[in-house]
């Protein structure tokens, strides 16, 4: 599904250079549910951003579904993100000006789909997270857990094969966090969606197929 080969990432700020990732090689199979753990600042978010093609490594190659994206232009990367990857963030990042349904539709805007079809797909995704009744609310009218469920609906509405979740339960209490985990597990089992999740919670990590630990920009096996 996804393969990282000797990926290096260094940030340059003014005069200091910070090594964020060092020689990372990693392979995730289709249908796997992988969790990434590590102390803050260890580079796990950078790793997730690189897997999500939001950030480019300085060295090394990334292969996504047999496609080597090393030489891809911004526009091609955007297309891959749109079709193959869904993001879930710790801070939900819903667009406050848009209603729930419009938020969920967002990834479909960048495809050539009729507005009727978009609405259908978005409702379908909302159905899956159990929020179809709230489709015309604004994000601010929902609880944190509900907002994160909307964010998940947005991530899956485009039927991506890979979900990237950056501490999806980080801002939620344990009860709501559990709900979110349940939804992710169902997606993984029922739809065979590959999920890579950054987490701080050992219990959550245990519920996944595989745990990867990152420390000082390196993988620990």
């Amino acid at each position: 599904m996804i393969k990282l080969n000797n990926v290096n990432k260094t940030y340059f700020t003014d005069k200091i250079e910070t090594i964020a990732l060092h020689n990372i090689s990693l392979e995730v199979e289709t249908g796997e549910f992988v969790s990434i753990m590590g102390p803050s600042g260890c580079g796990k978010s950078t790793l997730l951003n690189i897997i999500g093609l939001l950030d480019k490594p300085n060295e090394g190659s990334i292969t996504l579904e047999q496609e080597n994206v090393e030489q891809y232009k911004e526009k091609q990367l955007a297309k891959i993100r749109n079709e193959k990857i869904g993001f879930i963030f710790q801070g939900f990042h819903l667009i406050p000006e848009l209603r729930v349904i419009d938020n969920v539709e967002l990834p479909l805007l960048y495809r050539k789909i009729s507005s009727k079809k978009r609405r259908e797909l978005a409702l379908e995704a909302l159905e899956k997270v159990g929020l179809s009744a709230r489709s015309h609310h604004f994000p601010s009218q929902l609880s944190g857990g509900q907002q994160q469920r909307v964010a998940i609906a947005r991530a899956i509405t485009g039927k991506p094969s890979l979900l990237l979740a950056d501490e999806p339960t980080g801002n939620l209490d344990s009860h709501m966090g559990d709900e979110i985990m349940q939804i992710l597990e169902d997606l993984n089992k029922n739809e065979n969606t590959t999920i890579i999740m950054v987490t701080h919670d050992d219990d959550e990590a245990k519920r996944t197929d595989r745990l990867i630990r990152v420390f000082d920009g390196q993988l620990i096996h």
Partner: protein
Amino acid sequence: MFKNYLIIALKVFQKRKFFTFINLFGIVLTMSVLVVGLTLLENYIYPGHAEKNHDNMLSVSYLRALNKERTQSSSSDPGYYFLNKYVKPLKSADKVSIFSSPRMVSVYLDGQQVKSRMRLTDADYFSILDFNFKQGSAYQQDDFEQGRSVAVINQHTKSLLFNDGNAIGEKIKFDEKVFTVVGVVDNVSLLEQDAYSDIWVPYTTAPSSSYKTDFMGGWGALIYVDSEDKRQFIQSEYINALKNHFEPYASTGSDTVYATVYSTADTKFSRLARDINNSRTFDTGDDQLLLMLGLIAIAFMLLPSINMINLNVSRILERSTEIGVRKSFGASSGHLVIQFLIENILLTLIGAAVSLIISIGILEYIEYLGLIPYAELSINTSVVVITLVLSIFFGTLSGIYPAYRMSKLNPVIALKGAA
């Protein structure tokens, strides 16, 4: 997609009312001035009253004459002699009217005195121009030939002299001569230069026929053709006649002999071009004027654009989460540029709509002040269309750079910023 952008745009406008207000202030100011300018220009180039058949008319209003050595030149409006000799006989013209420029006269009636502009014309003048007669009618060919002392006056003069009553058959006196009013017409704006006046009388009533020898100054001519296509033909026929068949003219009372003349049969636009460019040859410089008008409009939009660019650039980070999310879910930079441009253009369009309303007020105020005598300035469809096109251009000009900057925002940083 479009709808999504519009919703976001309107929400953003509402959320940050103060910034929307500042942006709108600049847009409305700029567009209002442009709309007023455009309306004046439009009313001049496409007059709607007496000169409404301007598409079938050409006007001769300029003459420059040089001596053989080209050391002496003189330019002004043409004289009767010149027009009668070179414009009147034009073969392809269907009608030609010769008339004087308006001059001030004092009209006396029952001890009251009114200052008015008076024009001497022939009878064809009223068949070429389409005056709207409120009372009576124009003087006829017969009146003209017999030199009858008859006058057409405009509504303004009529209400000054006769209040609301009937003016037909009444006598007015100016230049120590009594004229009978035969017609009352609607006021015609100064923008219709060949029609504009308060009083019109046949030039055969002039106390002497000495005007017939005037080569330069004081007169103009209108050429009427049945079809628009003939206009270009006439224009070249006229220039040819002046180039090849001009007979050297010795002006009275001076030893100058004019050997070369420049004059053209102008459309409304080319006449404006000549006035503004100060053109002195057969070329009135229409293209130059068009270019100049375009440059003025752009220069005028420059400061408001930079103002908007500044504001919008300072507000980029406000949108960082949205940009980050959109990029994560597959929006390319192009998508984002288009989104923010549409947002900006929407704002300039709203501003343009407000400007159109404000401009109506400004134009009414200009009419009220009488800055342009008798002008009735109205905004018509073509002004609205040009305004909308200009506002889209303005929106692009002021929006493209902030949109570019926004689209280049790094999604990783954008998302982290608001976490």
